[in-house]
């Protein structure tokens, strides 16, 4: 007993208990993570509120300030931004109309994408359609590539000459300008987004359908229910939780989506909340922009909350047991081939056409001339200062993307950003996973869990705006990071925390606590346990998570568009700028470069392992 009575018993029992509990690895890690999450998730959210409620330097010139002779002292409390957004002559154009547009787009998108995605999932998993594997593989491609190339491809085809610039294929072939509603605005935006986001519903839906125990359905049939009744009364309720989570995912993306409405909406002044927010920031109306950001976060947050309320009780019967059940397939009979042809046509339109169109346009010498004689490789490999067939300087004298220093440095920035972010996000993910799983039920664990989910409800553009507001100036030990590469990494990692922490938690759940305890009993310290037991056992999940983050950061536009500076430009923001300037071929060539990089990334994942994509997207 004397041994123990030595150093270990100094101090009050309470203090010793506190020290001992707080020095367990999960608590140390949990505390560090908590601080990080507070700094980079909670603090930015508070900062957003603060900025929305106070004057900034640029507010001195606002009419509401000037007319009333208010002294707009920066940092002083004010409701002027709320007044401007909600109750002023600007309200209609700055808030109500963009809100209406956002709602129209989100509802249209959610409805279309969910319908297409779940029907396709059902056909692939539950029917006797031929070539299932192939369909499934092709149908998930949109998840791998960015959303906005489809919008660029749409422009290439349906552009009319109303907003200037060269006309598109449609006009080239039919010699009539396509009507405005087909070229720009809600219809093409909803179509283009749906052609991308159906893949999310498809992945989640087919994951859920594949894990339903078909015996549950057979029991229903044995009890005399018709096929339709079984579908409605058994299958549908069982997949409902997954449909809800696909709904949440699509809906929150719809609220925040930026690229597509920017390309297809801004030219005809069809603004959504996200593009309005962007233009406010660009016009130095950041206070107004932050009010809009708050609205977007509230809409997303409330929708998710209501969904959780609705599915809360039902969540428990998600039957993802992981065991492969005999999938009982329904015969489509003679419809089989008709449906197959329809699916093929759909996949061609959704997956191949955009890439094909963009590739072709990137090869056009003179924009708008779709004949074969007009093909050039200038935008890919041309030298600076080349002339086009009419003797005009190509691309204002810029070299093709594979020779262009600026673009190559952007590509390098993109890859670097994606690699760094993916690395930090996965490390953070597994650490969060460890501290949440090993400390389950404790307050710290719950707070970390909640905080790491929070960025999910911040639309990308709003999250970028928050970081812009927060890191424009120094806060205590954190320097002003605006304009640095670090802020891009920070914002990307923070925005990915909801996904990477889920991946990490899922990976940690696989590691039975006893595997770690067996090592602890043999005297292995925490670091040994982590490197010898936990890391090897979660590695494959981490690699997949890493690659998923890599792909997502690589194609990210809305999150970083407000934060890049000429020095830190990445490919996606370059595309955005080129397209705004009317350099379509350049934009398209760079887009294809991004697609090539993300596809390569995916091929690498597949090499590493069979990845279940639905795990990474919060299904």
């Amino acid at each position, binding site marked *: 007993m004397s041994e123990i009575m030595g150093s270990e018993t100094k101090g009050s029992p*309470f203090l010793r208990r506190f020290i001992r509990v707080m020095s367990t690895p999960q608590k140390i890690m949990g505390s560090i993570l908590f601080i990080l999450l507070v700094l980079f998730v909670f603090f930015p959210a508070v900062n957003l509120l603060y900025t929305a409620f106070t004057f900034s330097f640029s507010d001195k010139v606002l009419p509401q300030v000037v007319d009333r002779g208010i002294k707009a002292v920066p940092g002083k409390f004010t409701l002027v931004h709320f007044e401007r957004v909600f109750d002023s002559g600007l309200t209609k154009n700055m808030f109500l109309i963009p809100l209406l547009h956002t709602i129209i787009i989100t509802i249209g998108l959610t409805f279309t994408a969910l319908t297409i995605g779940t029907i396709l999932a059902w056909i692939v998993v539950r029917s006797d359609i031929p070539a299932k594997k192939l369909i499934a593989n092709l149908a998930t491609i949109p998840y791998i590539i960015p959303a906005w190339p489809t919008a660029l491809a749409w422009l290439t085809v349906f552009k009319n000459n109303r907003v200037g610039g060269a006309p598109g294929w449609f006009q080239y072939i039919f010699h009539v300008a396509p009507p405005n509603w087909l070229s720009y605005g809600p219809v093409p935006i909803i179509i283009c987004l749906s052609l991308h986001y159906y893949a999310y519903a498809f992945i989640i839906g087919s994951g859920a359908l594949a894990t339903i125990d078909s015996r549950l359905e057979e029991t229903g049939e044995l009890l005399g229910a018709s096929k339709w009744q079984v579908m409605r009364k058994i299958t549908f309720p069982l997949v409902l939780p997954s449909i809800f989570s696909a709904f949440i995912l699509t809906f929150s993306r719809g609220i925040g989506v930026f690229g597509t409405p920017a390309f297809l909406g801004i030219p005809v002044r069809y603004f959504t909340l996200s593009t309005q927010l962007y233009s406010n920031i660009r016009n130095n109306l950041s206070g107004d922009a932050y009010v809009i950001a708050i609205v977007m976060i509230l809409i997303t947050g409330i929708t998710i909350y209501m969904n959780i309320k609705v599915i809360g009780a039902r969540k428990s019967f998600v039957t993802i047991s992981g065991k492969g059940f005999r999938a009982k397939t329904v015969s489509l009979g003679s419809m089989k081939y008709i449906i197959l042809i329809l699916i093929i046509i759909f996949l061609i339109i959704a997956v191949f056409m955009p890439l094909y169109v963009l590739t072709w346009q990137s090869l056009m010498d003179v924009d708008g001339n779709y004949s074969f004689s007009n093909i050039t490789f200038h935008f890919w490999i041309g030298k600076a200062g080349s002339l086009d067939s009419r003797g005009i300087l190509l691309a204002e004298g810029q070299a093709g993307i594979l020779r262009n220093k600026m673009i190559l440095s952007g590509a390098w920035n993109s890859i670097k950003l994606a690699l760094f972010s993916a690395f930090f996000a996965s490390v953070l993910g597994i650490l969060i996973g460890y501290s949440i799983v090993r400390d389950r039920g404790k307050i710290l664990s719950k707070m970390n869990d909640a905080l790491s989910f929070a960025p999910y409800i911040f639309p990308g553009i709003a999250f970028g705006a928050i970081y812009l507001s927060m890191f424009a100036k120094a806060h205590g030990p954190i320097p002003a990071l605006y304009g640095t590469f670090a802020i891009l990494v920070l914002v990307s990692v923070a925005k990915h925390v909801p996904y990477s922490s889920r991946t990490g938690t899922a990976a940690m759940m696989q590691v039975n606590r006893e595997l770690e305890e067996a090592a602890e009993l*043999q*005297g292995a310290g925490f670091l040994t346990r982590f490197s010898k037991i936990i890391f090897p056992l979660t590695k494959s999940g981490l690699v997949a998570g890493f690659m998923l983050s890599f792909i997502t950061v690589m194609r990210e536009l809305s999150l970083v568009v407000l934060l890049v500076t000429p020095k830190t430009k990445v490919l996606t923001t370059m595309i955005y700028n080129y397209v705004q300037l009317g350099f379509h071929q350049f934009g398209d060539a760079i887009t294809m470069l991004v697609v090539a990089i993300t596809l390569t990334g995916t091929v690498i994942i597949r090499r590493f392992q069979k990845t279940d994509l639905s795990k990474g997207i919060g299904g």
Partner: protein
Amino acid sequence: MAREKIRIVNLCKRWRDVTAIDNMNLSIEEGDFITLLGPSGCGKTTTLRSIAGLEEPTSGELYLNNKLVFSKKEEIVVSPAKRNLGLVFQSYALWPHMTVFDNIAFGLRIKKLPKSEVKMKVLSVLKDMKLEGYEERYPQELSGGQQQRIAIARMIVNRPDIYLMDEPLSNLDAKLRVDMRSELKELHQRSGATTVYVTHDQVEAMTMSTKISIMKDGVIQQIGTPEEVYRRPANLFVAEFISNPKMNFFNAEVLSEGGNRFINAGGIKLNIKPGLIQNQSSVKAAIRPEDFIITDSGIEYEVTSYLPSGSTSLVYAKRGEDKIAIMLDGSYKAEAGDKIKVGIKKGLFNLYDIETGNKIF
């Protein structure tokens, strides 16, 4: 008297509304093979994990080798690694990404033993466990029984003071289980290590242990040798639990006849010492099937079924509402409908208070 190896004092473990261990007191001597026996959820695993230091009890004290390793009051918690004990988990917890060799060598490598010594020790323990030649396999490539032996090998190679085993045989098929029982018993005799063994299988507990501790809802019901627990169950719960072959229970009246008191258990008269039963008018009588005898002075029962099994025969019989099971010699023959006269070996019965369930005799 042997040295005390493990002492548990007033130990409690609670999770919010669940009490897994309720004020446990237990003393285990060096060389004991003690079994924690009880139904699922009674706190066996929790007790084992508390001894190992993997679970922190809510209150109480724990001594290993007369050293205080856990005390809530004094806030002493010695880490699992320093308790010098080994644990075989219910799930085995073999590391799937390591070969058999690496699994077993893990602890030795942590202790930084030289390579040659690690190799020698691992190979020798593999030989003891009859697993030579398997060192390059991965756990998933082995049968349940082999995995189980690897788990034991991984524990004993570190030469711990105390072996803790959590239902190590529960995942094995019946035949393998019987084989492994004797192997484990041998292992215990060879090493002499104090062993705490968890099971909910009565036969396993009876055949292997030097002591059995029967638990229910986190409370120890009885501690004793297998013989004591079998012969003199401390209460109805234990009597029912240690009930293989099936224990016979009777709601028995207490009668008086000429100053002598006796008990009527299904017609069979059980004599009791005067003064043993004061104010109950009826008690619960428990008689094991093998304690019945066929005797001319017995009470008539009618055979309902006859189940010979070679060395013994089991006879089910009834008399009115009372149904009994009788275990007889294998040579005994009977048929359904036969009338038999049943008596009891002298004194081989237990009486329990109907209300409290505690043993009266």
